[in-house]
């Protein structure tokens, strides 16, 4: 690969179903190179991975059928930074309140799907993320989940109406909302800082 001379890290975006294109655009604007991942071989050589919004049941089933669940679990457990939004948050969770869908089960959170209600309850709201100081983050919530409970290793980054909606643990970052649908790159940059740190360690 000729990439080694290039400073921009190569980040994969799981593209089985959902809003992968918007994440690729945001990552590229934030200074990374993006690669859509549909098959196992496309996981090779990645410095980070994004699991986008979409339908978590669809994404989970396709991860099982195309033998991606175990390899991704292995890579993230070994320290590959991962950023999950909405369905991606659900996929990373240890447990979902109802249902028995396939999960990566890597983050010590229990998640309620569609927690804010059906589509007519989908909303936009300004969020406080202390990690970014005073400037609020515009949260777009679409049939969004929330974090019902979290283990001691999990750092909650933001809440809405008393429910955690952004968190991190080790090199995993999750949001219940969709930064990729805004022009605000702060969360993607935060994720890329973790990617750079992990690359430097390796």
């Amino acid at each position, binding site marked *: 690969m000729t990439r080694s001379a290039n400073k921009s890290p190569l980040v994969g975006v799981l593209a089985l*179903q959902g809003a992968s294109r918007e994440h690729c655009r945001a990552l590229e604007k934030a200074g990374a190179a993006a690669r859509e991942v549909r098959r196992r071989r496309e996981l090779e050589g990645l410095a980070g991975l994004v699991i986008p919004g979409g339908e978590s049941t669809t994404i989970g089933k396709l991860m099982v059928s195309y033998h991606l669940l175990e390899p991704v679990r292995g890579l993230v457990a070994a320290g590959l930074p991962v950023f999950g939004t909405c369905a991606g948050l659900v996929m990373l969770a240890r447990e979902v309140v109802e249902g028995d869908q396939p999960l990566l089960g890597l983050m010590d959170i229990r998640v309620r799907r*569609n927690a804010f209600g059906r589509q007519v309850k*989908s909303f936009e709201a300004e969020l406080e993320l202390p990690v970014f100081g005073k400037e609020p983050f515009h949260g777009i919530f679409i*049939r969004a989940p929330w974090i019902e409970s979290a283990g001691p290793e999990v750092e909650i980054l933001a809440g809405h109406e008393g429910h955690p909606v952004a968190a991190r643990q080790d090199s995993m970052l999750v949001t219940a909302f969709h930064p990729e*649908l805004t022009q605000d790159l702060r969360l993607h940059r935060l994720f890329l800082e973790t990617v750079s740190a992990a690359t430097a360690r390796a």
Partner: protein
Amino acid sequence: MKIGTMTVKTGLAEMLKGGVIMDVTNAEQAKIAEEAGACAVMALERVPSDIRADGGVARMSDPDKIREIQQTVSIPVMAKARIGHFVEAQILEALEVDYIDESEVLTPADEANHINKWQFKVPFVCGAINLGEALRRISEGAAMIRTKGEAGTGNVVEAVRHMRTISGEIRQLANMDRDELFKAAKELQSPYELVKWVAENGRLPVVNFSAGGLATPADAAMMMQLGAEGVFVGSGIFKSEDPAARGKAIVEATTHFNDPQILARVSAGLKDAMPGLDIKELGEENLIQHRGW
């Protein structure tokens, strides 16, 4: 906090991309669709091929049927309202369906006006056979477009025609001198601002799926290669011999639409597809794609 904004309406369509939305008529079919990997289901009383065969007036589903499906699956549930029937749409919004399809598959209730979709918090998807029709629907508040094809035929030819038509018209606009866009807007019978947006961005301002006549994994993958961002499959799944296997195969073909090796594998051994109809034998007066104005 704001609900029902255009951002959250178009946002759900963005989340459905790369997925398959399947027509279902009861809870059992909805469960099969979810298990097959559908990203949403469309709840309706009869699939389009039965509506075509039965004739008469086709209307919104019984709310009990829609509730039963909502209680069975966790994926988004869509439902159809007749073109122009804003009270059916009010009822579907009260039921909290996730998307309303203002659909030509049902019998139109108004032969001049579509629903004013800006009045609703629930998003709408509408059919289109060309760019002008798509932009008129968007100007009325549609948050998602699907090419119409010819529903209930199991024949993909009209879906291809409509997708190629819209893509071609977008390319023409993108190549035009800016001074020509006013005349283009007049010819497309669409608002100038939307025409200008399409010319500058080279795409529709909302997500565009393919619908109407898709019956095989190859059909779905072809529509994706032609530029669809996802597919609706109506009669094609539950009028086939093995809906669970065919549904799963169409989902996989939609994800891996550019990988002929995978397409060959998922296309094998699916038992019979739904019976297909030749569009020419239907006669122009029996085409439902011309409903909508």
